[in-house]
Each structure stands twice: as structure tokens, then as C-alpha cells.
């Protein structure tokens, strides 16, 4: 049993036309037992940067708290929000600090950068960044997610279509993974608004 498979999770982020979407499942389990079906895995750092954390839930929560702390201080000192690329560099640095006793998390970062250009990236548990132009996935369902995204993704989708595609990719992938599921949580972010939606899939 891998420590990364203790709680179970599924995360996707996808790039659209001047927008992005980030989605997660809602299950919180302890190995085979499901403990909660409304567990938050995607966090808003600010209106234009979202962070998804998969892996061990306790590490995900602690890492999120540390990052929010750093970002709040950054906002106070620099009187501006962090760009998504900057935030990704910060996450990477924080993870590598714990190189020989890491956080058992795989983050997914999605945001709108300068000129509303969407930015997504993921990294491993010790901070190796992986930038992508189309989609990134993480979690116990990642193999199915890769397949589904690869099949369904198109470049330059409008927010509504992006929502449909990311939702279908998420729900079909978590059905093949016993440790993730129990619905979905999708954020579609454009320069003007953030739309949060809950999905109902197979509740098992």
C-alpha cells in the first residue's frame, strides 16, 4: 500500500480560450472506508490562482495552510497578488525544502497570468514542475485521467464546452478507480468570473 493511495483523489486542470477549469473528486476515505463525500481538494489562493492537492489528506491540508500563509504575507509586502507562475515556483521551492522527508502530495496549479493567459502545471511530491499547454492530472485515478483527457481534449474551448469536457473526463475516470469518486467539484475561471459547480456521478 502506497502512502499516496491512503486517502484517494482525482484532480484535473485544463486550459481553454482565455479561461481554465480545475476539477476534483469529493471522496475522503481511509483506505477502503469512505469517511466523507464533500471533501475539498481545490483551494482558491486568489481569484486568478487555484491550487488542487492530491495525495495524503493531512499533508494536503498542511501544505495548503503554509502556502496561504506565504501568499498573504506576499500580498501585504508587495501589495499585489501572486502570478500563477510565481506561485508554482513557490510551491516547488517549499516541496523541495522537505526533500528528505517530503509532503506526500501532488499539487495541481491553475491560474490566469498576464494578459489573461491561462497557466496550468503539476509537480511531483518533491517539486519537479511539469508545465503543460493542454491539461494536467494528479491522484490515484491519474492513469485513467490521462487517457480520458487525451481523448476528449480540444484546444481553445469556450468556458461552457470546457466545463462539459472536464466533467466527462473526471467522472468517467473516477469510475475506474475505487479510491476516488463520490461526485465532482469543478471550477471554471474566466477573467471576469469564477463558476463553481458540483457534479453528481456514481456515488460509490
Amino acid at each position, binding site marked *: 500500500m502506497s502512502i499516496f493511495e491512503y486517502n484517494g483523489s482525482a484532480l484535473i486542470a485544463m486550459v481553454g480560450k482565455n479561461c481554465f477549469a480545475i476539477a476534483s473528486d469529493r471522496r475522503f476515505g481511509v483506505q477502503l472506508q469512505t469517511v466523507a463525500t464533500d471533501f475539498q481538494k481545490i483551494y482558491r489562493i486568489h481569484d486568478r490562482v487555484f491550487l488542487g492537492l492530491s495525495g495524503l489528506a493531512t499533508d494536503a491540508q498542511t501544505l495548503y495552510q503554509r502556502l496561504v500563509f506565504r501568499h498573504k504575507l506576499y500580498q501585504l509586502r508587495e501589495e499585489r497578488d501572486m502570478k500563477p507562475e*510565481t506561485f508554482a*515556483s513557490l510551491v516547488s521551492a517549499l516541496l523541495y525544502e522537505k526533500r528528505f522527508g517530503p509532503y506526500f502530495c501532488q499539487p495541481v496549479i491553475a491560474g490566469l497570468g498576464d494578459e489573461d493567459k491561462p497557466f496550468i502545471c503539476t509537480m511531483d511530491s518533491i517539486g519537479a514542475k511539469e508545465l503543460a499547454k493542454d491539461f494536467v492530472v494528479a491522484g490515484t485515478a491519474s492513469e485513467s485521467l490521462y487517457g480520458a483527457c487525451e481523448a476528449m481534449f480540444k484546444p481553445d474551448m469556450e468556458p461552457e464546452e470546457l466545463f462539459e469536457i472536464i466533467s466527462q473526463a473526471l467522472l468517467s475516470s473516477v469510475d475506474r478507480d475505487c479510491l476516488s469518486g463520490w461526485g465532482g467539484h469543478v471550477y471554471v475561471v474566466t477573467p471576469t468570473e469564477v463558476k463553481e459547480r458540483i457534479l453528481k456521478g456514481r456515488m460509490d
Partner: protein
Amino acid sequence: MGDSQYSFSLTTFSPSGKLVQIEHALTAVGSGQTSLGIKAANGVVIATEKKLPSILVDEASVQKIQVLTPNIGVVYSGMGPDSRVLVRKSRKQAEQYHRLYKESIPVTQLVRETAAVMQEFTQSGSGRPMLGWLQTILDFNGNCGVRPFGVSLLVAGFDDNGPQLYQVDPSGSYFSWKASAMGKNVSNAKTFLEKRYTDDMELDDAVHTAILTLKEGYMHLKLLFF
């Protein structure tokens, strides 16, 4: 003074509420070579006199204006060796920022951190500033303690907020200026700058004005001597 149990600061308050060591540090700055900076609409210029003690000095080896990052530079008035310590520290801070955020440090942040270093040296008592722990070190005369930096810095930079010019004093206070001067002849230089400065100056005009201001001070000195 030789008793190590007495760890008092060389920068203790006087009854009038001043830190006398800082006043003396400012005097050291005021007798240093003139330096000035002018913020233009599309850039910043910093300039200083480079008067060397003898014609035998290799002038190419003397660098009074230093680069902190590719878009931030600094000039000083006061004690050269003190400025070198600050430049070294500031460069390291800028690189640490970049290592963390993979972004160039904004001018305001670098100025803030440099000023914090200078302030440390006005309050550390007999502990060592710039170290993670306090350590009392006695010299041969039994003096323990540190002194403030004997320099004022003019930090000029260009970042996302446009051109910026900051002055940092030995006390650690910093100010943003449109144009400023430090060192010898500062009042004449500032008066000259006040007359000549316009908000929509281009960089070339600013360079020209900077040279004229320095020349003005030099001429003034020459008149004094002859």
C-alpha cells in the same frame, strides 16, 4: 566597557531622543563625495563624483556605481568599504528572492530588505547582526558592539511599477525620490535639481541634468579654493 556582562548598545538613546551614533553616521555621509539620482519618465539615472586621491590610482578598478540586479543599480555617499558590504548583502537577497519565486525582485522589496539590514546595525547591542544567533564578541580594548553603516545609498531601478529611485540612510529609513542628492554640497545640488526637475523629463535630459548638477558642485568647490 571591558565587562562582558554589560551588553549595552553603542546606539543608545540620548536624553533628547536621538541616536547619536546615527547622527554621526549621517555626518560621515555628508562629508563623502557627492552622488545624486534623477527619475525620468522612462528611466532613472544615478551619478557620482569619482575623485581619486592621486593620478596614479588605476581608475578603472574603482567602481562607485554597482549593479544589484540587471534592472537595479546603486550609488553611495560615505564610506566605500561599508557600501561594499551592503552591495554584497543586497545582491544575495535579490538572488534569494529569484530562487524562491523565479521572478526579478521588485525595487521596493530590495530596498526594504537592505534598509532592514542597516537598521539591524543600529539596534543589535553587543550581539552580532546578520547572524541567526546572538553572540558577544569582545575586541582587544574590550569594546563590544557594532556601529551603524557610514553610507547613504541611492537605489535606482526599473520594474513593473516603472522607474524608481530610493534613498536609504544609515538609520534604515528609506524614501522614494523624484530627484535627490547626498554627500558634500547636498543643499546646492538639491536646490539646483529642484529648479531643473520636470515630471516629464526623458532619460537623456535627466543624464544631462545630472552632469550639470555635479559640475555645479564642482565649480562651487573650485570657487572656494581659488
